[in-house]
């Protein structure tokens, strides 16, 4: 898949670096929800469908998911330089912040206000994940398998993780395998991808 000819996309590795820095610095307790918001909603570099496809691979491969996504997206846009720029953006500023916070940790860790502030920020992160999740769930309306089947599979995966407490590889193999096999059957052998 080549870089899209139309629509907004990062102009160079420097822009990739800053875009991933910007989203990383908003990701408290994980960056998953923020990536959708920054790359899809605010910058328009990916559609919801493209984001889901990109994330699928990042999710299945070993390694930090968001680092995998940054590497693959950066490479697709600007080659190896783009991949390194996106990964560096994701890590550099948060790492400096973390080291600073860790050095002054003993000054504030047992302060009840600090603990309470972190709880408040954590509650916002719940909302970021839930809000992005709802939007992506609604994006499944245009899924190949039809809205009902796609949302049912998403619900199945959610229940498997939260209620049955199944490990992620089992969900990927079980629900993901079922879903991929179903899509495979729906795709006609000679059919070309749109676009």
């Amino acid at each position, binding site marked *: 898949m080549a870089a899209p000819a139309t629509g907004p996309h990062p102009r160079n590795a420097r822009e990739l670096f800053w875009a991933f820095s910007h989203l990383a610095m908003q990701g408290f307790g994980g960056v998953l929800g923020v990536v959708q918001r920054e790359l899809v909603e605010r910058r328009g570099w990916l559609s919801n469908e493209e984001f889901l496809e990109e994330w*699928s691979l990042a999710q299945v491969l070993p390694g930090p998911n968001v680092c*995998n996504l940054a590497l693959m997206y950066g490479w697709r846009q600007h080659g190896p330089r783009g991949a390194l720029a996106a990964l560096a953006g994701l890590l550099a500023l948060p790492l400096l912040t973390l080291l600073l916070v860790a050095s002054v940790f003993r000054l504030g860790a047992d302060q009840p206000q600090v603990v309470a502030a972190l709880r408040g920020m954590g509650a916002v992160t719940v909302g970021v994940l839930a809000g992005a999740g709802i939007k992506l769930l609604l994006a499944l309306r245009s899924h190949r398998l039809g809205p009902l089947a796609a949302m049912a599979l998403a619900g199945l995966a959610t229940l498997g993780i939260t209620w049955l407490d199944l490990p992620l590889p089992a969900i990927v193999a079980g629900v993901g395998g079922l879903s991929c096999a179903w899509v495979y059957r729906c795709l006609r052998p000679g059919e070309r991808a749109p676009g």
Partner: protein
Amino acid sequence: MNPADWLELLRLHLTLSPLAIGGAMTLAPELHRALVVQHAWLSEAQFQACLTLAQATPGPNVLYIALAGWTVGLQAAAGPWPQQLVLAALGLAIALVGVLLPSSLLACAAGHWLRQHPQHRGVRAFRQGMAPVVVGVMLSAAWLLACSLDLCTAPSQPVPAAIAVASTLAVWRTRMNLLWLIGAGGLIGALGGL
């Protein structure tokens, strides 16, 4: 720590990297076993602090591994503080590069292969078929984080629950900058709302 220990630190992270399916947090039990129990390079409290601090500061979760490497390096040898800082930076670099290098090479290779075969029926089935699972993982992440903050089963905590609901709506229905939301959440917490 002697040179063999540094090599062992690198080997540990290089071998854990390909096992991290589902993200960096899945490595926490194994890292704990190696760093705290087996080698005693970190104390129990230090390892927990790495996890907590990485969760509390912005950025990808994998940074807790970088901080653990930093802490291992920091107490690797007694000496003047510039020397300790250099060793801490070395520990950080070994941990972060070690845990990222194998998985990153794999991701770049897999991404490259997929770009070469965009029309392959199996590739397209995979990309479209996994989409519902990705949505499920994101919704689960929201639920599990809410539970870890005691929001799922505690109606006695109306304020954080209200913050979570309000930010869900703000993210879903508006294009508001997240930093405002995060700042507001932290402020309400610090002012004694929680």
